[in-house]
């Protein structure tokens, strides 16, 4: 299934990545979302991350559910296959796709309605199975596509555009992802490209279930005063625990940072995450501490962002199932069908 890339001819002035692709090779069709929608910024961050990682654009499978957020896979990576599935069920479709071909990169895009309400079960189970993927929730606290109803991530006490106060408790997907055993958990903000791009890169490079909760304001229905998912609110309450850089290849890290400030995290694919700690106490490999930290700050009304947790020696569902290295979709009759001789033995054992 490997096929050598022949990049399109582009304006010679456009910068190229290691594979010779330009930024444009990672773009999709023009977005039809509302101007200013946070989701479009996430799309841009995904494009940037894939460009910087020098991924073969067609070796990504982008899978989503239903919602404004789930529409975005059409707007990036136009040369990869996409699957806009059904509401809340991206995780199962992605799991199946991943089982069929372990060699592709799986990018799951979902919304807070998609993942915290109708698809809460699938969200949970894909993470606890350790499906190798980058699972991004574009979290705006509302159902954008159905015109602004509260979602399950809306904070208690926050106000809808129509002035209704949400009385239900909110679900913190990042906290739950930690509890479920996701081996990579991060939170970011669509308005903070500097933080978001490296997080997406690190999530893609991570082997295992990587989850990113990206706060992504809905300018149409949830960007007013009283909302806790508006641009202003998030900027004011953002508590970043770290900043990261993802370095692929063998760049000498020491040169770039003063020792002591940074923590180096090696990933399976050979890439390295250099974490600049903003909070000196934050332990990125301690799941329980991360959970406590999140709760503590949530109680203070703060939104913790950054790489919250990464497991050092994570593995994935294929490792658990002990599947062959060849993608299952590439096995043929010879490898799969035991033939009449095995059937003769079977028949004999059934008499």
């Amino acid at each position: 299934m490997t096929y050598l890339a022949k990049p399109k001819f582009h304006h010679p002035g456009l910068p190229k990545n290691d594979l010779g692709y330009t930024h444009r090779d990672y773009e999709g069709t023009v977005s039809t979302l509302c101007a200013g929608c946070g989701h479009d910024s996430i799309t841009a961050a995904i494009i940037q991350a894939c460009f910087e990682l020098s991924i073969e654009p067609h070796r990504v499978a982008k899978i989503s559910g239903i919602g404004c957020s789930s529409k975005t896979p059409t707007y990036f990576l136009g040369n990869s296959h996409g699957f806009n599935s059904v509401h809340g069920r991206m995780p199962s479709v992605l799991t199946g796709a991943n089982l069929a071909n372990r060699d592709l990169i799986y990018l799951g895009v979902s919304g807070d309605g998609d993942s915290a309400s109708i698809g809460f079960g699938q969200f949970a189970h894909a993470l606890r199975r350790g499906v190798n993927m980058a699972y991004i929730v574009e979290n705006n606290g509302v159902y954008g596509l159905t015109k602004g109803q509260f979602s399950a991530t809306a904070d208690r006490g926050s106000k809808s555009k129509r002035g209704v106060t949400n009385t239900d408790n909110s679900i913190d997907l990042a906290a739950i992802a930690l509890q479920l055993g996701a081996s990579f958990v991060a939170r970011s903000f669509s308005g903070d490209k500097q933080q978001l791009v490296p997080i997406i890169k690190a999530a893609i490079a991570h082997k295992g279930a990587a989850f990113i909760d990206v706060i992504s304001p809905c300018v149409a229905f949830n960007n007013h005063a009283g909302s806790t998912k508006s641009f202003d609110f998030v900027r004011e309450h953002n508590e970043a625990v770290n900043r990261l850089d993802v370095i692929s290849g063998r760049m000498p890290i020491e040169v770039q940072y003063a020792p002591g400030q940074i923590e180096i995290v090696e990933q399976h694919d050979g890439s390295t995450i250099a974490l600049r700690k903003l909070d000196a106490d934050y332990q990125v490999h301690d799941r329980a501490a991360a959970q406590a930290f999140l709760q503590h700050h949530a109680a203070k009304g703060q939104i913790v962002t950054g790489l919250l947790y990464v497991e050092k020696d994570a593995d994935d569902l294929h490792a658990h199932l002990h599947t062959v290295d060849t993608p299952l979709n590439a096995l043929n009759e010879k490898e799969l069908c035991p033939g009449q001789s095995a059937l003769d033995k079977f028949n004999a054992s059934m008499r």
Partner: protein
Amino acid sequence: MPTAKSSAAPISRVNDFVVRFANVNGSGSASANEMFARAIMRMGVPVAPRNIFPSNIQGLPTWYEVRVTEANHLGARGGVDLMVAMNPQTFDKDIAGIEAGGYLFYDSTKELPASKFRPDITVIGVPLTAICNREYTDPRQRQLFKNIIYIGALTALLDMDVKAVEQLIGEQYKSKPQLIEPNLKALNIGRDFAILNLSCPIGLTVRKADKVGDRIFIEGNASAALGAVYGGATVCAWYPITPSSGLADAFTKHCEKLRVDPETKKAKYAIVQAEDELASIGMVIGAAWNGARAFTATSGPGISLMQEFIGLAYFAEIPAVIFDVQRAGPSTGMPTRTQQCDIISCAYASHGDTKHILLFPENPAEAFEFGAIAFDLADRLQTPVFVMLDLDIGMNHHLSRPLTWDDSKKFDRGKVITAEELEAGKDFGRYLDVDGDGIPFRTYPGTHPTKGSFFTRGTSRDRYAKYTEEGAPYVDNMQRLVRKFDTAKDMVPRPLQATSVNQTKYGVLYFGSTAPAMDEAIHMIEARGHALDRMRIRAFPFHSSVNSFVADHDFVFVVEQNRDAQLRSLIVNECGIDPVRLVPILHYDGTPITARFIAKAIGDHLDQLKLTPMKVTS
């Protein structure tokens, strides 16, 4: 000894009777009873065993019925000739089910008043509990060996070859040889007791024959799962539900044997027990979209949950294989009883205009074949394919022709464009009807850096997979899907037809697990002086020969195991046939349909000569 004389003439038959064991669920009787059936089969006499069990792990009544049938009538017969009544809870009901002149075998440890018995049966008492209490001290042993002791007594009463049972005990405990001796001992305790104290044999006897041939004894779930192995399935996602769990379990076992790379010891398959049926079908669709052969196994409630996804697979044109091992609905219904009640809910599964491929295997051998070709059909037609088993086929052992495979057969992966073809400049429109058969071409994700990618969605799109809500491309696409379904008519297994030797104006349509009972019933109907042409439907969409068959007869009976005549409705709807020409014959109490039932229902109709067709009221 409490062996009472019968007022009716005791039934006297060789190799043609029904034994029913009444037990308590969880008492370990199942393996002893199965051994009894196998021993008869080893004597060269065909058997048709059926488990009748509750949705419970321990304590509720369960029955195991063995039809001994040299004539190869493998369907359920109805009625019991010898009742082995081991369950006090159901004792009265069990006795009531014995045929006049039949036999009752019971545990006579505790004396029962004469009023508990019927005068027209032969009563055979064996003090099983007393014997066990005398022989064993451990309560669990008392229980387990009681089962073997009654099997021992039966070998004497039915004049069976005890060697066959002994051999089976040896095979069963091959890996635990310390258990062989005590089991043989128990067998002989029962057998010796019967020989010494009872008049053996009774009127029902088993005589060695040569009627089994090379047939195998297998459950449909096990053979269907093997079909999935041979059909090249690599991904199985499922959620436990009776009566389909055995299929996923069997797939696991087959794969552990047949699909592990000998060098690396790694698995050439992936099995996931999903969190629910929504997830299991979602995984199947994701895997098939990505070019693997994938399936799920479920039953009615699971089908209900999968509806939205099935519609997606239909509309986005993604292969999926769904084994539906049907059980009695609606709702939780009778979860351990059999029916053919998901015909409509599968044929038209999901909202909007949808139609799906259904395959109706009649027995385990066909479940194997259909289980394998389902993957070719799903890939070729890029759509969900349902293999419609039921509890009777899936969970009972059936004497079935041996499974065969053509080693020269290649998987039909359908219309898939490769990177080389794209590179060579082949035009690709995901939903273009290039060949006029309604089937478009697809590419697998990851094929080519710049060509052949497309976006899969459940929303309407044009021929090049571009999102659109325009009416014309929507209709164009929906019409192509109809063309594709028409193409399927000649690809799915054809109906099988049998013409009566005597010319007749009447016919009968049937499908699935009804087949063995129908084969037997036809003789009974002929014995009543009627003739009937037969057609066994094996798939939906219906082949044109179904229309001709109905057209060629004045009336056609449609025999099915559900209340609402679902197959008949499907025929009326899809073939445009006047409903009055199709007479429903419906059996739906949760037990497998019997030849007696069919013969009586159809025979009574035909006796009236002037058939009164059903009036359609609107």
